[in-house]
Each structure stands twice: as C-alpha cells, then as structure tokens.
C-alpha cells in the first residue's frame, strides 16, 4: 500500500467540478471523486457550485465574475483543500480571484485550490496505482497547466525537465506515454477565443491534433477537458482516428 500522511486523512476536501465538465464530462468528475476516495480522503461536493467565471473574464467581462467568485469563496470556505479536474479553471481561481476580490475581501480559495493531477502528484504522492491501460497515450500539455500551474517544465524556459502528468500516468501498468512535436504549443481553444477567432482557433487545433496523431497516439490525454473538447470537435468533424480521455480517468481506470 502507499503511504499517506495521517494529517491528510483528517483534511476536508471540497470537490470543484467546473460547469462544462459537469454537463459534458461528468465521468471525469466521477473518476476524480473515486480516485480521491480510494486514497482514503474525506471528499465532499458542495452542490450549489456553478462556474469560476473564467469564460466571461477572458472575454473581457471580469466584472461579471465577481459575484461568482464571492459565491465560490462562501461555498468552499469550510474545506482545507479544493480539488478540480481542470488546470485552467484552477489557475483562474488561484491567480485571478485575488485580483477580482480585491477591495471586497481577502481571497481564501486561491491559496488552497489544486488541479486534481497536481494535488495527487504533490500532496497525495502515490507510489502505486491499480489497473492497466495498455494503450499509447499522447500527453496534451495545456497552456494554463504548463505556464500557470507548472504541471510540466515549459519548453521556453531553461529549467530542469519534468512532467507531473507523465510521472502519474507512468504508475499505470501497460501504458505507453508519448508527446507531440511542439510539445506545449497552444491547441487554440482559449475560451471565447475559439468563437471570436474561429479560423485561427480551428487551424491551431488541426495542427495540434495532427502532431498528437503523428506521435502515434491512440488516446490524447491531459489535465484540461476544455482543450480536449476543442480537439475532440475537430477530430469528430474530420473523422480522425484518435480518442480522448482525461488523465484522471486513466489514473482511476483500475478502480
């Protein structure tokens, strides 16, 4: 069995399932819950949660996110950690909530929110995971995961190379891990960017999918369902031979 710090077992974890994951990829939410529960953690899901407000803020309407941030603060006040299966939403709470709430009150959620992969890698630190995933998986290094949450070493920086997602996935038996050329180039989703600049967005997505497929991917996987959703739309339109799965779903595949 893996070793878990006793302190962690008495911590209360609030699960944040971002709006689009809730509606489109509930299985990602279920996998996150199962995995955290498997580690023996006390996980709760406050049902009045909605959205972090990033879609509006990135579109230029940060003021529309204020009441959502306030609600979020209230809902998650009682938890020691907040865990969300989405690097981008996590980064938004972590880095943008403090500014949005400035002048209202101190932001308390920003300091305790973790992306699910980040939380498992940095806090839970499992040494083993059950299950097999005998497939070739290309890791999608999402921009906010890489350049805001530092889930892997950004390709632009001269720092030691690492990848938390690859570390975690390699715990699963039978998996073959690969990465695309231009390893952390944006896939072109970008929230409202996808509809304001649809042609550039789709062009970026097509290039990205091509690079994943060229890396031999059976599956494209990562910490952000939003990027996967955008690429999935392109794959479906062009009937390309590649499947999508959130990294957490692979990690929970043996549960």
């Amino acid at each position: 069995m893996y070793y878990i710090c006793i302190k962690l077992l008495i911590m209360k974890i609030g699960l944040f399932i971002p709006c689009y994951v809730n509606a489109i990829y509930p299985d990602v939410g279920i996998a996150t819950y199962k995995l955290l529960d498997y580690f023996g953690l006390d996980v709760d899901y406050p049902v009045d949660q909605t959205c972090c407000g990033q879609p509006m803020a990135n579109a230029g309407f940060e003021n529309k996110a204020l009441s959502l941030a306030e609600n979020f603060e209230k809902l998650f006040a009682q938890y020691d950690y907040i865990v969300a299966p989405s690097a981008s939403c996590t980064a938004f709470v972590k880095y943008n909530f403090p500014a949005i709430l400035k002048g209202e009150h101190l932001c308390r959620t920003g300091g305790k929110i973790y992306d699910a992969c980040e939380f498992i890698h940095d806090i839970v630190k499992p040494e083993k995971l059950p299950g097999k995933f005998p497939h070739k998986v290309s890791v999608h290094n999402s921009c906010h995961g890489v350049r805001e949450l530092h889930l892997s070493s950004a390709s632009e920086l001269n720092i030691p190379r690492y990848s938390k997602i690859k570390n975690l996935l390699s715990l699963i038996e039978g998996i073959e891990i690969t990465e695309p050329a231009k390893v952390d180039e944006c896939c072109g989703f970008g929230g409202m960017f996808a509809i304001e600049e649809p042609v550039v967005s789709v062009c970026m997505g097509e290039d990205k999918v091509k690079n994943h497929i060229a890396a031999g991917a059976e599956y494209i996987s990562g910490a952000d369902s939003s990027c996967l959703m955008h690429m999935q739309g392109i794959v479906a339109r062009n009937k390309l031979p590649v499947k999508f799965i959130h990294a957490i779903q692979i990690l929970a595949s043996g549960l």
Partner: protein
Amino acid sequence: MSTKHAAAARQFILNREQEQWHNETLWMVRQKRDNMAMRIAEWEELRELAGKIKMHTISRLDHYLELFSSEAERNGATVHWAKDANEHNEIVYSILKEHRVKKLVKSKSMLTEECLLNPYLIEQGIEVVESDLGERILQLMGENPSHIVMPAIHRKREEVGKLFEEKMDSEKGNSDPTYLTRIARKYLRNEFLTADAAMTGANFGVAQTGEVVVCTNEGNADMGTSLCRLHIVSMGMEKLVPDLKSLGVFTRLLARSATGQPSTTYTSHYRRPGEGCEMHIVIVDNGRSEIRGNSEHVQTLKCIRCGACMNTCPVYRRSGGYSYTYFIPGPIGINLGMLKCPGKYSDNVSACSLCYSCNNVCPAKINLAEQIYGWRQGLDSIGKADRMKKLMSKGMKFLFSHPALYRNALKMSPAINLLPRFLVYSKLNAWGYGREMPRFAGESFTSMWIKGKVKKTNRK
C-alpha cells in the same frame, strides 16, 4: 462579430500552404532561440536581470537621459529632443536640409516606421534608401514590414527573385538566396557610395558613456555611417541602459532571443563622430512618457524589439503580420497599439488565446499576456466590446449566479444533442466552423451526486 484581425486571419489561412510555411518558418526561429537559450546555464537569471535593469532605468529615466545627453555631447555628438513623431521628422529633415542632403541611406529602424519618416522625407524631395536587405525588398515592393526583426518574412525567395529581375535586372528564374544577396549587395554598394547621409536606429543607448549601440547582421549600418559624413541616430528614450556592464546583459540576450544567433554579426558602438563628420542623436518620446506613468502597462517600455514573442505566438504564426492593424504585430504589438490609441487598435486584442508563451520567451520578462487580458477588460467601456460576447457573458453570469437555475439547465441540456443539424450548425455558431459540438452527457455530475449515484470506491 468578427474583429478586423479575425477577418484578416481568415484570409491569410485561406491559403493554407502559405500559412503552414509561415508558421513553420517562424517556429524554426523559435527553435533556434530555444537551442541558444538552453546552452546558457544562467539564461533565466539573465532574463530576470534584464527586466530589472530596464525597470530601474525607466524609473530613473530623467537621470539617465540627462547623463546620456551630456556624455554624448561631450563626445561631440549633437542631441535633439523630439516630443512626438512630427517633431522627430522635422528635426531629421532640418538636419538634412542644413547639409543639403539629396540621398539618405538608412539601416533598419522600427522607430522611423513608427514616425512614418520615409514618406515624410520623400515628400520633401529627399531620396531615401533602405539598406537592410529585408527592408530594401519591401521598399521596392511598396510594402510595410510584417515582422519587426525579419520584415520580409512573409515573402518567399521566388517572389524576391521576380522583384529583382524587374528592379535590378537579375537572371530570370534565379531565386538562389546567395545569388540574390550578391545582386542586392552590388546595387546597394552604389547607393552607399552616392549617399550624402546615413541614418540608423539604436538598439541601446549607454548612459554612462553617451554611446549608441546598433546591432545588424549585414553590416549595412556600418557601410552607411563609414562612408557618409553625416550620421543621424533615431532613438526611443526607453532604449537607455545605465552602463557598459548592464549592456552586456542585453547583448547576450538580444540576438539569441531574436534569431537564435549567439550574437549579431555586427555590434557597432557609435561614441563620437569621425574627423570632419557629424553625429546627431534624436531622442524620441512619442507617447513613452505617458506609458511610463501607466502602472499596468509600464512594462512594455522594457521591450528590446527582439521579436521573440511573435515567433512563439501561435496566432501570429498562423495569421501573419498584416492581420494586425498596428504596425508592430504579435503580443507586444497588441499592447503597444492599445497604448497608442485604444479606439483605433482594439481589433488586435482578440488575437490571443492567452497561452502565455510570449511571457516565457521575452528576454525582458514583460507580462505580455496579463496585459492583453487587462485590455480586454477595458473594451466595453470604450464601446469596443463584441456584442455577442457581451450578451453571452451576461447570460452566463445570470445562469451561474442562480445555482437552482443552473441545475435545471444541466438537466435540460442533453436535449440540445437532439436538435437538427441545420439549427445547430448555422452561421451564428462560430464553434461549428471546423468543429463538431460537444455532446451533453445524459446526466450531469451534480444530478448524479444528489441522487447518490457517485459511489465510493470498493476498497479491497
């Protein structure tokens, strides 16, 4: 719905082959930059240091400007102060007029592009010859730069070959780069020999010594300044660095970031005019003082115009320099355009997926992406917000502020899957361009949680 950038980008991408070529060519430059950056152990410290030196200099700009100008004058140069583009152009013209200059040979300068100097001087009857090869090609084509370091990067060598056939009588169908460079060199040699004055920009001004540093790969700045008795330097006032020691930080970063070379072929230090020669330095404000007082955007003044943010920008690579309405494209151009005139250049703010790659390559560590995010927040107040986005944001806020309503919407959303295709994939649905819609799950996570369907793991 569409910004000017989005519309121009659509046009650019219509020629997918050209787009791919442009994308890959600039990516190659990004890779060359990476190779250089990874070979210097202290690269990240250098960037940190460069950013700090620039902020220090900008915060004490009055002191450093005075020091620079007094040292430059002590060296025998004449210093001029221009508050805006017009004043800059008038000063340059008055110097040229005084010296009865008929032909001016220029090395590359983005500041003179900013001031629209060339058309102004040509109107006054002065012959202006660009001597940087890329700039020369564009001048002959009647085009503007599409990139600040590689101005003609959007043109292929075959197009240059054709242009040279027409303008320089080169061999028909020969587009060999070495051959074309030789032809250009031969023609430019004559221009250098017959010019009356030379003009350069300035990559750096060293306050301690009053010298100007110009970095080129072609040696064209040196040809001009060595052959002419009159040298005019056009320098933005943010180009100052305190001393030669700090200059070393920037000369290590500039060429590596810009083109992936360890250094430019020529790094020329102009300290004093030669015997019987004159050197004039025009220091230009043109809005920079205002930026200095803008705490959210003051960091743009740290820019050393290396173009690394363009080479890495996934949007720039796929849309080309001309898709932006400001003369400087890419992440830094989006910001500088907004600082110049938000009402005029707000169309570029959409050209960013907030991937943050520009922040990571910037040798002066400018927070380019955060600034673009910041500009978006101000668009509504100047009446430039996209109506559709505003409507959607309002609707989302309403929905997400009412948890019960949100849960109801979650329940209803699977019905959208059943809508007929022509309704979903209309012209109004920009997502539908090139992408299928995601399918809503039969039951949301919240609903499953409430019904107790989200089960604990069976632990063995």
